[in-house]
């Protein structure tokens, strides 16, 4: 919970509410880890109170700004590497820390540990704690071993079997260290994580950022600024991009990838229940008598419906856009007491008359403004929803009808799907990711009258899940039919009561239960981390690494180091995000400024398996989605290709896109089918653009501003140089490469160009015109003259470039 804060942007966030492990509960560790023991503390000093959190600061707030404490502080050097990598990395951190921390179930024990990710000095303290436990004896045996094996009273019961790797590590540790500790052994490898990695030049980084966030190439002014001031110029540029419309299109697309909110069943207006919104089909009777004849009116009505539905689908994502554009706390996605409506959707809600003066253009279907709905009433006007304020108790996305309809419920699901999504979307916890195995689930199900409240194996999760499910009870949209109200028979008695992490929902808060949930979630430290992960996913096209699980894996330590490097970055950015009033732009700014985003290449080959494992996920190297690829094509060629994203295109799903409904995960690696689409795209885009570009005056051309079709290779040095300069320009424009005319890749492209012309000549005779399909004005004559085959050779060059990784990937 957030326990304090200040108007200077500093706050103290200590841990989430502790979960009480039950004695002897087997299999609980995993679930506890997933849902409860996110014991990372922001550790930011509260300057007002002078109080510091339970951990040393990771980011020190001073009057001069932030002073990040390095992940590789020299104060760690000298720690026993066996302890650090084996005892702590494989056992202590993964197993003991979950309860044995200052806020955990074992906080009162003598064995209290600290997380070390942000505070490496804690490693030595933990080592001392382990040494004390190792030395303590009971009947001639180390208490450490007796405890973990459950042979001595231990709140967590048996957590390590005696034949497990973890137990063997502790055995070795106690053997080494029980009695008189040995001197510290080998030092840890503190070689910087990014050692040997070359970062992008500022110019290439600029291109990456403008294409990714702004769907455009850098302007000359931006390039000049970066040329002059390097990376320092980027912050301002990023800030400007985040004011452009293209950024918000990307933002909405990205959050739909995460929330999948556009994917609810049925037509869009059915998110509004028949019971409460009698005007939801207003477009069917809207007066269009002034619009031409019957056919014209029919077309107009189709358009009206289409735009209304799109506006309705987009509403929740517009809320995100509104919050970010106005730099409002992103916690409002959980707490906003308003929704975004347009002239069209407000008609569906029946509030247009009250709002029409606030719209700049009442005929603009996509002009969104914030608005509050009155509390829900039946079609006959009877009050339906208790609300002391008279308003619908909006709670950001949580209470939008689109979100509720996207994740409906059933009589047996009882809102648990919504809870799963709530945890995943807003706290970054996948409660279904690693389900704990039980010995006989069927037997447990049948042995207890109410297993979810009585069977230990079930209770461990359901005591967390079911109270949150209860908070959604007044939005019981059964079977997705869109009737948002309490269940007729009353809420289930065979579930834990409504609340959150042991805090019961007070009766007087029942009418605003989702607001109550949203407020608490906004204060949960995991919220900020989850949002950083969402933006990470947006920028990288993949989720951050998960901690390695298999301690028997010889590469475990290397994988752990890679995970920790990312996790450290994420937590630092999360704390900055929280401190800067949860402004989501901070995360974008920080992440594009992160080394992880700027990695270019290896300077020297990595040889050892450990180093290769550390580097395994490094580098953006992400295949563009269909939408991203279309935007890049538009940015480079100045016009849309469209075949990847058109409404009637089959390519979108084939190329790894999603429909937010049945296809919800993007494909990250190209299959042969996608390879075929890449070839189609390269052929077709080159076909549409090369002759067309040459037909323009040189100063208006994008592709060939410095060359004419009559410049031939192999005639003289000047001609070849001109051609190579044209290639350098194409490499820059299409691939983002910074080549010189002498570069090997330029030479390769030159040889392609020259080779095509040579081959054409060797044919004896060829058509002196560009092909019919690829002429400047498709389906119109005359065809573009191409007496030397150079236009077609340049088309071959562009086709070749469009098939390369530098173009198809970020």
């Amino acid at each position, binding site marked *: 919970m957030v326990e304090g804060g200040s108007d200077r942007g500093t706050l103290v966030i200590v841990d989430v509410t502790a979960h009480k492990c039950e004695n002897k509960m087997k299999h609980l560790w995993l679930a506890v880890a997933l849902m409860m023991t996110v014991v990372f503390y922001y550790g930011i000093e509260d300057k007002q109170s002078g109080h510091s959190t339970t951990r040393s600061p990771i980011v020190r707030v001073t009057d001069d700004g932030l002073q990040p404490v390095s992940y590789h502080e020299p104060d760690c050097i000298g720690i026993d590497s066996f302890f650090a990598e084996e005892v702590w990395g494989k056992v202590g951190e993964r197993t003991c820390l979950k309860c044995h921390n200052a806020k955990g179930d074992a906080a009162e024990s003598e064995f209290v540990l600290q997380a070390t990710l942000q505070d490496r000095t804690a490693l030595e303290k933990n080592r001392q704690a382990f040494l004390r436990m190792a030395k303590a004896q009971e009947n001639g045996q180390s208490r450490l071993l007796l405890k973990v094996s459950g042979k001595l009273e231990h709140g967590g019961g048996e957590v390590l079997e005696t034949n497990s790797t973890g137990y063997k590590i502790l055995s070795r540790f106690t053997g080494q260290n029980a009695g008189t500790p040995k001197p510290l052994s080998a030092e840890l490898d503190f070689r910087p994580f990014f050692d040997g990695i070359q970062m992008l030049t500022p110019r290439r980084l600029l291109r990456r950022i403008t294409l990714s966030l702004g769907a455009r190439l850098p302007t000359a002014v931006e390039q000049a600024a970066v040329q002059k001031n390097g990376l320092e110029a980027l912050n301002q540029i990023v800030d400007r991009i985040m004011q452009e419309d293209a950024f918000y299109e990307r933002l909405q697309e990205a959050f739909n990838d995460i929330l999948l909110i556009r994917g609810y069943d049925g037509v869009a207006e059915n998110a509004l229940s028949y019971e409460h919104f009698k005007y939801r089909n207003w477009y069917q009777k809207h007066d269009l008598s002034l619009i031409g004849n019957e056919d014209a009116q029919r077309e107009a009505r189709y358009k009206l419906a289409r735009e209304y539905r799109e506006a309705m689908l987009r509403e929740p994502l517009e809320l995100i856009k509104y919050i970010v554009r106005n730099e409002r706390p992103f916690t409002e996605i959980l707490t906003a007491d308003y929704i975004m409506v347009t002239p069209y959707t407000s008609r569906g809600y029946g509030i247009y008359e009250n709002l029409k003066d606030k719209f700049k253009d009442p005929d603009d279907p996509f002009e969104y403004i914030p608005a509050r709905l009155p509390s829900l009433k039946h079609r006959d006007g009877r009050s339906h929803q208790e609300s002391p304020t008279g308003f619908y108790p909006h709670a950001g996305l949580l209470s939008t009808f689109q979100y509720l309809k996207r994740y409906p419920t059933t009589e047996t699901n009882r809102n648990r799907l919504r809870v799963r999504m709530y945890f995943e979307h807003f706290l970054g916890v996948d409660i279904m990711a690693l389900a704990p195995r039980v010995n006989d689930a069927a037997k447990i*199900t049948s042995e207890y009258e109410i297993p979810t409240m009585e069977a230990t194996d079930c209770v461990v999760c359901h005591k967390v899940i079911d109270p949150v499910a209860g908070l959604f009870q007044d939005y019981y949209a059964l079977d997705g039919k869109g009737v948002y109200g309490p269940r007729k028979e009353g809420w289930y008695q065979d579930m834990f009561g409504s609340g959150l992490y042991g805090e019961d929902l007070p009766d007087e808060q029942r009418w605003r239960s989702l607001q109550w949930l949203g407020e608490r979630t906004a204060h949960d430290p995991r919220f900020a981390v989850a949002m950083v992960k969402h933006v990470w996913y947006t920028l990288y096209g993949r989720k951050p690494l998960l901690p390695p699980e298999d301690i028997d894996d010889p590469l475990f330590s290397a994988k752990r180091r890679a995970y920790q490097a990312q996790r450290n970055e994420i937590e630092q950015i999360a704390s900055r995000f929280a401190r800067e009033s949860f402004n989501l732009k901070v995360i974008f700014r920080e992440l594009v400024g992160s080394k992880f985003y700027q990695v270019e290449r290896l300077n020297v080959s990595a040889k050892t398996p450990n180093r290769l494992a550390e580097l395994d996920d490094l580098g953006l190297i992400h295949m563009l989605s269909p939408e991203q690829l279309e935007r890049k094509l538009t940015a480079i060629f100045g016009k849309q290709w469209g075949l990847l994203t058109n409404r009637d295109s089959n390519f979108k799903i084939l190329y790894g896109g999603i429909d937010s409904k049945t296809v919800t995960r993007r494909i990250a690696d190209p299959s042969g089918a996608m390879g075929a689409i890449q070839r189609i795209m390269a052929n077709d885009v080159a076909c549409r653009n090369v002759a067309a570009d040459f037909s323009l005056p040189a100063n208006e051309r994008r592709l060939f501003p410095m060359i004419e079709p009559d410049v031939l290779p192999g005639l003289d040095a000047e001609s070849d140089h001109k051609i190579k300069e044209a290639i350098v320009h194409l490499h820059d424009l299409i691939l983002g490469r910074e080549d010189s005319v002498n570069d090997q890749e330029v030479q390769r492209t030159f040889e392609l160009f020259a080779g095509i012309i040579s081959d054409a000549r060797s044919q004896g005779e060829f058509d002196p015109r560009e092909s019919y399909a690829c002429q400047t004005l498709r389906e119109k004559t005359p065809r573009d003259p191409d007496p030397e085959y150079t236009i077609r050779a340049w088309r071959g060059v562009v086709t070749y470039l469009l098939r390369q990784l530098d173009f198809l990937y970020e």
Partner: protein
Amino acid sequence: MKRRNLLKLCTAAGLGFASPVGERYLVKAEENRTESPPYEGPYYIVFNASGGWDTTYLMDPKGVNNINRLYQQGDILTQGNIRFAPNAKQITAGLSNEDFFSKYTNELLVFNGLDYSVNNHSPCSRYMATGKLDSLEYPTFAALIAACNGSDTPLAFLTFGQYSATGNLVPLSRVPYLSSLKRLANADGVDGSPHTFYSDDFVRDRIETALMAQRAAQVSEPRLPRLQRAQSMLYAAQFNSKALNRITPYIPKSQGKGRLPSQVDIALASFKAGVCVSANLSIGQFDSHANNDVDQMKLIPELLAGVDYLARKAEELNLRDKLVIVIQSEMGRTPTYNKGNGKDHWSVGSIMFMGAGIKGNRVIGATDDKQFLVPINPKSLAIDQQQGVRVRPEHIHAALREFAGISKHSFSMKFPLDIPAGERLEKFWG
């Protein structure tokens, strides 16, 4: 690309064919091949009854203890060694159990009493698909076999839904429409034309050669592991995509009607063309928490009709004896009805297999009269309530890997299943 042109250009470009990943494609070019040869089987198809089927209305009939309302114990039918629930009188479409078992018993291996271990859709789907409950990294069996047997085929692993993780071993392909295949088959043709090309063939050859030369040059540079993988996969995807032109003759003029037939058509055309190793087929809505019997009586016949459609069409294409078919769901349904006449999640279920190399007309394992699992002896496969093992998805997957001959493949070794000593199912396939 014409082979002669390619070789001439490769030689001119001085290609060394020495890249670590993707090298097989370069090597193939060196061996005078311009594309990988067709994959000739066996082909693997996994049918997923998504949502959790009621096995007591199919291959594990009960008819006692109010487990089934539509029939009693005495109504249970038998075909060969397989007992099954009657449903011909209840269904209005699809294939009845009677017809299905009458037709396929001799090919069917039924396993009853599978312990899903948990009863939530997400982990169960993952567990059934991969054989591993507690990892998000493992590939599905369909992806694994595709990677082991034919990762250089352009649509090695086709999926139409359900859990489809690949373990980064092979790209997955989604092909929702048959018409898409036609367009992909002629990527160099203007608007998919097989006759009119964007460029002359010598231009296409030059482009391919330049890409190949670039690929060879990349290999000698220090590269991040991720970049190395991406370069290889991209090159392979584009190179292998040319084999899609083999699919054109096998694209049926019309697509089968219904959820499964449309998937089957795409899978079979891809198998026949030798561009695919495995396909993950799926139909949903089995999660019958309300009105269990009504829903299951619609869905089970639809599922069986889909299997039948596959078998018939495969016969027509002479592929039947190369198919291995797995029919599964991620969970079972409770032995009791809830207040909404539905059945909830049950962590015990069944799985069926048929196809090349599988001895049919057999039932292994069992559940008791209350639909609890009965352990079996892994060596004799006989029921052994006292000393037997609870067969879980990892046992089935280990057996599948062995059956497919990939249990020692490095990809399989990368994702071990850790079956305890003595629990390996012996002679499972007959």
